[in-house]
């Protein structure tokens, strides 16, 4: 469970102070499937980075599963990023020259886990890439690269996966494939999914839509996801891969 109160992020560029976040209060329950919308520069990425423990707020408190993140030192944050959180970026952020399976196994390496290849292979299977294990990023399409990144974010079985415009670099058909993967992770593994988007199609695919403007939350609505609405064309999104039962220890 995530609880933000009065989160402020101020950047100082030269003599200018820019408030990227200006007192954000937000609660996210376990198992939610939500999106964050807002115009460019409204602070979406800043918020995601703080929730993802990649960045620190200037003011306010961030409680993650009852722990005040502000009090944690570097190594503890690294551990949180490794075990509790998964992050997916708009630009995929895969390591160049590394095969898909090795990319996906990487978080497990930093965790000191054994049987890494097996878990990585299972994660790749979850995102439907079992036949692309040895491909390097340059040998994969954009959608496939993003699915590798998703596999990497989920291989440690995190409680929360955060994605900053995960479909921003993809066409609409591929976007829906990726969304379907997220949905199955949410529904079948109970992973909390929160992602930033500025596409309404993508936002309507989630159960909660939060709107940001100038660093403030200006809207927070429940939504009936498009795939549950009859007659909506986006409901034809491909079904999620069936078996997600096999979990790495």
């Amino acid at each position: 469970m995530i609880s933000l109160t009065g989160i402020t992020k101020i950047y100082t560029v030269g003599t200018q102070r820019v408030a990227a976040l200006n007192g954000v209060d937000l609660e996210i329950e376990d198992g939610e499937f939500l999106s964050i919308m807002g115009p460019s520069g409204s602070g979406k990425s800043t918020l995601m980075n703080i929730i993802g423990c990649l960045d620190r707020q200037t003011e306010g408190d961030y409680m993650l599963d009852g722990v005040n993140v502000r009090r944690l030192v570097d190594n503890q944050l690294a551990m949180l990023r490794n075990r509790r959180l998964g992050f997916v970026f708009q630009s995929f952020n895969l390591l160049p020259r590394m095969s898909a399976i090795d990319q996906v196994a990487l978080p497990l390496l930093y965790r000191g886990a054994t049987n890494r290849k097996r878990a990585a292979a299972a994660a790749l299977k979850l995102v439907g890439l079992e036949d692309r294990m040895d491909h390097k990023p340059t040998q994969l399409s954009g959608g496939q690269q993003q699915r590798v990144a998703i596999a990497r974010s989920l291989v440690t079985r995190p409680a929360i996966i955060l994605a900053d415009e995960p479909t921003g670099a993809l066409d609409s058909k591929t976007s829906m494939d990726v969304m379907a993967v997220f949905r199955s992770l949410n529904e079948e593994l109970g992973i909390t999914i929160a992602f930033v988007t500025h596409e309404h199609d993508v936002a309507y695919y989630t159960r909660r839509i939060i709107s940001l403007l100038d660093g403030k939350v200006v809207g927070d609505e429940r939504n009936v996801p498009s795939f549950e609405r009859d007659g909506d064309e986006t409901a034809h999104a491909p079904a999620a891969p069936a078996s997600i039962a096999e979990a790495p220890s």
Partner: protein
Amino acid sequence: MTLADVLGTALASLRSNILRTLLTMLGIVIGIAAVITLTAASEGAQQGVGDQIRGLGSNLLFIRPGLEETDGIQLPGSGVSLFLEDSRAIEKANFEYIDAIAAQGTVGGPGDFIGAQAIYLGQNKSTMLLATEPSYPFVRDFYVDNGRFLTEEDLTKKSLVVVLGGDVADDLFDTEDPVGKTIRISVGAGPISIGFNFTVVGVMERRGASANTDQDDVIIVPMPTLQARISLIRDPRGRTNIDQINIKLKNRDEIDQAKEEIGQLLMALHAVDSPDFRIQSQSDILDTATQVERSLQVLVVSIALISLFVGGIGIMNIMLVSVTERTREIGIRKAIGAKRMDILWQFLIESIVVTTMGGALGVLAGVGATEIAERFNIGGDTQYVITPLWIMVGFAVAAITGLFAGVYPAWQASRLDPIEALRHE
């Protein structure tokens, strides 16, 4: 992360950019190869010179002129201060500890502006003439292998006979037996030269090269013959310049006494207060040679270490560039849970692995270069002796270089803020 994981990560990263890895290594490879080759050469030279000097015999004394050369060129008459007459005087003094004496003078040796040529049936060889006495083989423990050596009769008659060194015999006669044949020897400086016909009476056994002269590349002639025929070796007062008096003592315990008494005698003869000659025993020569070799080795090792140091700076530079270039990679690794130490170790181990592999390649290259140098006789007859010590020193220095070159870049990498690093580009 276990050490195996860190190593695996470093190796994977090095493998993913082979060219950069090899270029990074190059400085270390060359540095270590230089250390191995240069120390092998200097070690070999040291051992070789040591062996040859020890081979001289421990109860020998050598007397040489004090000022025999200027810039490596012998200047006849100027400052030369050893004469055949000195040798005779020592003999006459009848020191009871002297076993035998042989004076020697040379023409056409290394650094001599007078050249000597031997000719036989169109075969031509430039060599050194060594004028000496019948006692020479006994004193120097260097005997005739075929035929005979010079006799007293050769001296009194100033006979035109010669004994050839092994190399000269081979070069002029190939498989033919030289004994009894006549060769022509011409001695000269620039356009002026004089030639004589000599009969070969013997061939010396093989000795090998010494520090600066090849003892097999020599033609031995009777002292009076050379005296009579070549005016250049006579000084204005009619004395005969010689290069060296070899004295064989009965007992090595009397070396110090002999040096003292013979020195006094020569100073009296030359009417000087301080010696204008040098008296050296085998161990004196060994000491000097060892000292020279030591300082040479210090020089050689310093050069090699400097080149290693430069290689190390090169590695540090590449590692720093690599940290900047891989900032995004570092950000990604941190985003998925790499701790500071994980990043620090990754870069540090990468650096150490590069230099250690460079060290290994350098050892191979150095051993290879040494083999080639030996096979193709680069550096003349220099022997190369590769010592395990220097291989270990090379490795250790390589690894330490990697450690030092890697620490700062690795620390920089580990300190990067994840979000800053991800934004990089």
